[in-house]
């Protein structure tokens, strides 16, 4: 299916300042002794506006993590351009500035923690940026407060729960004062409480600190919280739009082996059975209200 809700062009950045812009990006992994070169991105154009919360979905191997790694110059495009706050990621002289603008948080918190005390871990990044120690105290405290881990500042990271470790890793990124943070499946290894803690922290970054967030996830309920959802399939943009718009295409999502939130699926089913249910249900609360609303109204013809 080739349907697209909005054209996947960079033009969607018109109503805000573009923080990250990918313009017709191609990427191929170089050939090795055993394998020929493999192209994994086939002309991706997308942009992320300042302060926006964007979720990137796609099955494993779709290219979404490859796209994320282009957003702070871990990978450079084989064709096309990537701009971070106007800086060309291919310009080596700008590398430090680009990495300070866009931070990354990965799946496994254990691989991201380096120190034996929480606050030292958070200070590691800013220290490397050469920030004077007078400012450092404030930076670290603010970062830990932003993720709700201030009380744990003197704890040992390895004794924390998965959700707490991941929040410390996030604090370490925040302390470097990036404008944007890219999260690559930050909750994949966490239990339900840990997932909730990390999602609350991300929510806080967007709403209170005004940090632009790009979230890669397999969890549709997490993607439902974003301002915009982008679906990647086979190295191309398949769909983009508001969560309720994208999730209304249940069949197409299924075809590409993606889920929709269960609340959305139930609401869509009742709607297809002729009940007067809104088409933008995303959460259990909205679904319950919609069912009560439909029960009050009469059955549509």
């Amino acid at each position, binding site marked *: 299916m080739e349907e697209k809700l909005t054209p996947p062009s960079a033009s969607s950045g018109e109503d805000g300042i573009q923080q990250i812009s990918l313009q017709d990006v191609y990427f191929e992994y170089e050939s090795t002794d055993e394998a020929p070169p493999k192209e994994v991105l086939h002309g991706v154009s997308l942009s992320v506006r300042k302060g926006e919360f964007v979720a990137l979905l796609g*099955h494993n191997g779709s290219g979404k993590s490859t796209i994320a790694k282009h957003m702070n110059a871990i990978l450079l495009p084989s064709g096309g351009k990537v701009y971070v706050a106007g800086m060309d990621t291919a310009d080596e002289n700008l590398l430090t500035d680009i990495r300070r603008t866009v931070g990354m948080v990965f799946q496994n918190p254990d691989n991201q923690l380096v120190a034996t005390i929480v606050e030292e871990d958070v200070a590691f990044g800013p220290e490397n940026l050469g920030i004077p120690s007078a400012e450092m105290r404030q930076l670290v405290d603010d970062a830990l407060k932003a993720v709700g881990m201030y009380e744990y500042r003197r704890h040992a990271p390895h004794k924390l729960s998965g959700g707490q470790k991941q929040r410390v890793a996030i604090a370490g990124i925040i302390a470097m004062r990036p404008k944007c943070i890219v999260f690559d499946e930050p909750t994949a290894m966490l239990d*339900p409480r840990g997932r909730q803690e990390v999602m609350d922290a991300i929510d806080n970054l967007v709403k209170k600190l005004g940090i632009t967030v790009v979230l890669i996830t397999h969890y549709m309920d997490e993607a439902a919280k974003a301002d915009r959802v982008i679906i990647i399939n086979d190295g191309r943009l398949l769909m983009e739009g508001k969560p309720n718009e994208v999730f209304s295409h249940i069949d197409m999502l299924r075809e590409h082996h993606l889920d929709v939130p269960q609340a959305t699926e139930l609401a869509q089913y009742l709607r297809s059975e002729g009940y007067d249910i809104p088409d933008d249900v995303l959460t259990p609360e909205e679904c319950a209200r919609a069912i009560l609303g439909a*029960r009050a109204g*009469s059955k549509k013809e």
Partner: protein
Amino acid sequence: MGIIETHDLRFVYGKGTPFEKVALDDVSISIEQGEFIGVIGHTGSGKSTLVQLLNGLLRPASGEVLLGGNDIWAKPKKIRNVRFEVGLVFQYPEYQLFEETVYKDIAFGPTNKGIKDKEELDRIIRTAAEFAGLKESLLEKSPFDLSGGEKRRAAIAGVIAMQPKVLILDEPTAGLDPKGRDRILDRIRAYREKTGSTVLLVSHSMEDIARVADRVLVMNHGKVEMFDQTKNIFKHGERLAEIGLRVPQVTQVFLELKRLGADVRTDVYTMEFAKGVAMDFLKRTEAAPGIPAEKPAVSPAGTLREEARPDDTDATEGGDAQ
């Protein structure tokens, strides 16, 4: 008698050191042959400790594990045999693939179990690969050339090839996309149906557990919090939230309806069942007088039909239903 039972099981990490911690206490459970058990609990609740005790990787501080009625530690030197009978697939098992080919990797377990006949071994390997959903063509590849989902399934095939009576999988779908997840759950379900094996699935995904489990074991702080049929477990939404868990999203819909004053059952945890229950609810009340969609719970009682009586004491506005 269950295929696997525990009596007053207790386990302590770091015994005799300042870091001593009781990881498991007072665990007595019984699992019948052929059951599909879901195991849930927050990180650190003791579920991984429990599964390692069940296959003899850890030895209990006190209490016992019975396999087919026999204490697995009766002859400590034979404990290795228990690991063939209770197969454990660890978290992220793909990191434990090490042979040159997938075929050799799957062969490792049954070879160690003592299967020497080449033809029998070959048959076992191919059957295990099929159960795990691995194509024949992948068997001669290096495990490192497989995709994430394929690696995971190769590791599962390696455990299935030991033909265990009890198969335990610790978070087998963690980090996989919906397609990879569905494929693994489907294969496990098919395996269990065909072989009649007992399966324990540890997962953080309530939706996965809801789809496959006959009964659910809920662990909390090293103890058994609940052990009951799946539908009875997910009725306890509030308690599950208190101990760091949750109910499937579709169950949340019905708990919310109830909270808003609707007379609706809440033991709903799969999508198919939910569709039926929601349809029944809508049909049953179709002729009801109008109720504002925004605040149904505060509608005057007189406008509600009998079956929607808002007499639940906890169905007050502003209640906390996550």
